Every structure is written in C-alpha cells, then in structure tokens.
C-alpha cells in the first residue's frame, strides 16, 4: 500500500469538484464581464507552468506559491518566510521575477510561470545552475531555487556589471548559511556564460 505523505494527501485533496471557471486574463477590454469568486468557493483556473498548461482548483486564499507546491507538486520552489522577505519562493511570471508568496493564484490566471524545475533542458542544466554547482554557491540549499531564479532574471535584466551591482540586485534573496561570496561569484560567472 502506498504510503501517504503530507504532500500526497494534500495533492489528492486538491482534486475536488470545481466551482467557478476563470477566463484567461485579457488586456483591459471595456465591457468585458468581471470574473467573480465567492468566499470559500473553489475556482478552476489554468496556470501555464514551465510551458505546460495546468488546471488547478483553488480557493481565493491560495497563493501562487502554495498552488505550485501543494496543488501541482512542484516543490522546487521553497516556502521560507511566506512574507516576501527571504526570496526563497522566487519564480518568473511572464519573464519577470516575483515572490510567489505575495501573489494569489487566482491573480495569475493565464500567466506564463517558470519555476526552477523549468530551467534545465532535459539532463542539461541551465548555465546558472551549472555555475552554482561550480562555485559551491550553497550549503543547506533552502534558498537555492529562489537564488537561481532571481539570478536568471538578474542576468536577463543586465544587472551584473560588477560584484557590487550583483549584490544590490540579488538583495531580495537571503541566504541563512551566508554563502553570499560564492553566490555572487556564481552569478558573475553565469552572466559571462549566458552572454557567450
């Protein structure tokens, strides 16, 4: 008999009959009907995660972070503080890095979401992932998925001109093991790699 972990229980509990179905967010269109969900009602929403459309049943209170971890089983994205202070939950939404604990899943209907699970190309790691290994840029690993997602965006934004600039633009990601030296080195190295 399969052993039930907290995770599998939550996953199966999430597969319940849905309530309201949400239409994908369109650019502002005057006259388009508002989408409404009542308190404690479950809504069927669609999230596009790592290139795949995924249907999820969520109550309004479910953050994007909890939808990814507890409903879709994508536990690479970590829950640290759940208050937007540590950055462990960083994911890309429509190409921009955000803290997934500070946004509701229902607010991200129709958005393109990239998590740490979506970076590698098959067995080939993303250059930022390779650089984190090469530079030993983690100890416990709790902050690492968030650091890596933030670094991918930081490089894309062009904020890797100096170690000082990297420190400034990676400041939304805390590391309680204080691997900052190696994280900065990894980001600088990966930035060169990505540009090549």
């Amino acid at each position, binding site marked *: 008999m399969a052993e039930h972990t907290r995770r599998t229980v939550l996953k199966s509990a999430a597969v319940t009959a849905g309530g309201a179905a949400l239409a994908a967010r369109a650019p502002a269109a005057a006259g388009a009907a508002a989408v409404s969900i009542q*308190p404690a009602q479950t809504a069927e929403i669609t999230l596009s995660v790592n290139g795949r459309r995924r249907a999820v049943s969520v109550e309004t209170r479910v953050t994007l972070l909890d939808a990814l971890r507890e409903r879709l089983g994508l536990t690479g994205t970590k829950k640290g503080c759940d208050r937007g202070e540590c*950055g462990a939950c960083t994911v890309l939404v429509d190409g921009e890095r*955000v803290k997934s*604990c500070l946004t509701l899943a229902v607010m991200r209907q129709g958005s393109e979401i990239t998590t740490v699970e979506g970076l590698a190309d098959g067995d080939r790691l993303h250059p930022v992932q390779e650089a984190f290994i090469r530079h030993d840029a983690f100890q416990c690993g709790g902050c690492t998925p968030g650091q890596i997602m933030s670094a991918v965006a930081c490089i894309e934004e062009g904020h890797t001109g100096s170690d000082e600039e990297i420190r400034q633009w990676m400041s*939304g990601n805390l590391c309680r093991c204080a691997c900052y030296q190696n994280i900065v080195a990894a980001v600088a190295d990966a930035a060169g790699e990505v540009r090549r």
Partner: protein
Amino acid sequence: MKPFGYTAVRDTGEAVRLASRTPDAAFVAGGTDLLNLMKDGVARPGHLIDVNGLDLAEVTETPAGLRIGGLARMRAVAGHAAVRRGWPVLAEALLASASPQVRNMASIGGNLLQRTRCGYFRDTGSPCNKRVPGSGCPAVEGWNRGHAVLGGSDACIATHPSDLAVALLALDAVVRVRGTAGERKVPIGDFYLRPGATPHVENVLRPAELITAVEVPRSATARRSRYLKLRDRATFEFAVVSVAAAVDLRGRRVRDVRLAFGGIGTTPWRSPEAEAALRGNDLTAESVARAGRALVRDAEPRHDNEFKVELVQRALAELLEELR
C-alpha cells in the same frame, strides 16, 4: 487568512461601483503589502477587487511633466528614461525601495497606500490605535526606535514607510483619484493625515476611491534632485531616516528648493521652514545647518529615537553637499 471573495474587474468605473456596494472590499494590485497584512490578520477584507486588468499602467511624459498610471510598477517608473532625466529623485527613491522582485510587482498607487511598519500595528497580539481604534498605543512608552519625532500624538507615533511618497512630496506631485462621484485631484502634501485622535484614518481617500494616476510637474528643482536613504542594512530595508532634496542653483545661490523627509514624521514630511532657511541664500555649511535646525525645531523624540534628530540633520547636509 479569513475567507474572502474575489472579482477581477476590467473597467475603472466598474471597480469603484463594485467597491462602493461591497462591504469590506479592498482593491488589490501588486498585493505585496496587502497579502502580508491579511496573512497576519491585520487586514481582514471580505472581498478583493483585482484592478490589474485596468488600463492604468502607463508612464507618459507630457508638456506639463510626468503622468504615472496608478498601476505602473515600481520597476517601470524607476527605469523610465524620462524619469531618470527629469526627476532623478523619483528613480532613486524607487530603486532604494524593497527588492527587485517586489519592485516588479508593487504598483505606484499601492506603494502610496502601504501601511506602517510599526511592529505593534503588525502584531495582532498588541493594542494599536491604528488597527483597533481606542485600544491604545504601546509605542509611545515602548519600543519606538523606528518611530516619528514629528507630527505624532498620544494616540500614535508610527511613520509612513513609503520612499516614493517622500520623493513625490519634494516634487509637488498631485494624486488623481476616482470614486463613484467622478475624479478629483489631491496635492500629495494634502494626501496624508497626521494621526491626531484618529490614527486609523491615514489619508483623504473616501470609501471606494481608487488612485488612477500621479502627476509630477516639470521644474528646474526636479531636474536637480536626489534621494538619500539611511537604513540598518545596506539594501532591502526601510528607512531609519531619508531625505529628498530638489534645488535650483545659480552658482551657490539657492533660487528654489524643496525638502522632504522620511522616517522622522508620522506622514512623509515636508519642511517649509528648512526650505525658507535656504531659499535666496548661498548654499553654505552655515545655511544648511540653519535649515537642519529649522527642520527639527518642534521635534518630540521618545526614549529610543532621539538619535534621529541629529541623524536627519547630518543626512540633509550630506545630500545638499552632493547637490552643490
């Protein structure tokens, strides 16, 4: 979080109508402050009105100045070429705020409406006149290192945490708001209210009103403007004290000047007295010191925050030196 309903609106008129007829409704844009307040039980809206689908995110340069949509994100405004050129204090204040992730999410309107970082306000186990009117203020006699030395009352000495608001105050910005009765304009200097006996009323917004835009006039002072933020760590932290200064200099002579401060007042703090000490005079160590003394003349420091009285004067001197 207590259960709440949710509506994603597509039209500004619909947003304010829905807000006006829904009890306990709150607008949500970035959600970066509101969600924390809801998780901690400090805010308990019964319904969220998601305004992200509204067409209010544009930043445009006009002959009169700058028009920033209420839903423009902090990152978009901070990185806007016209903002950096004509209103550098605005870009600097935004880049000194929060973290890159939060700046991607948080809206300009929401930034102006963020709630205080006072620990007693954010802890539902503590009394707080701002959260539960009439329950008392533990900060007045308690842990008040981060609190205001100007504009306080016996009921509340909490500061407003927005860096953006301080910069906008030095730029004579105007907030455009829309309610069921139509649109109106509020100068940023009139937008925030001192606590007095009603610290739970923080601004002049009426029920169901939504910030649609912020207008920032073009000026010589705006072009020569800077922001200095002093905090307990190098970045990703709220201000202990901050200064926004905008000056129009002819040689060393101050033709015009705007000075606004964060971390020292219960609202973003403008000091006409400090400005008067500089306007028409040469910018010298003496005139700057006079301006600093004028700024803190009525300061009422508490047990843990007396250092701010000296610190803010030094911050002002430092920033004006850079602007000279």
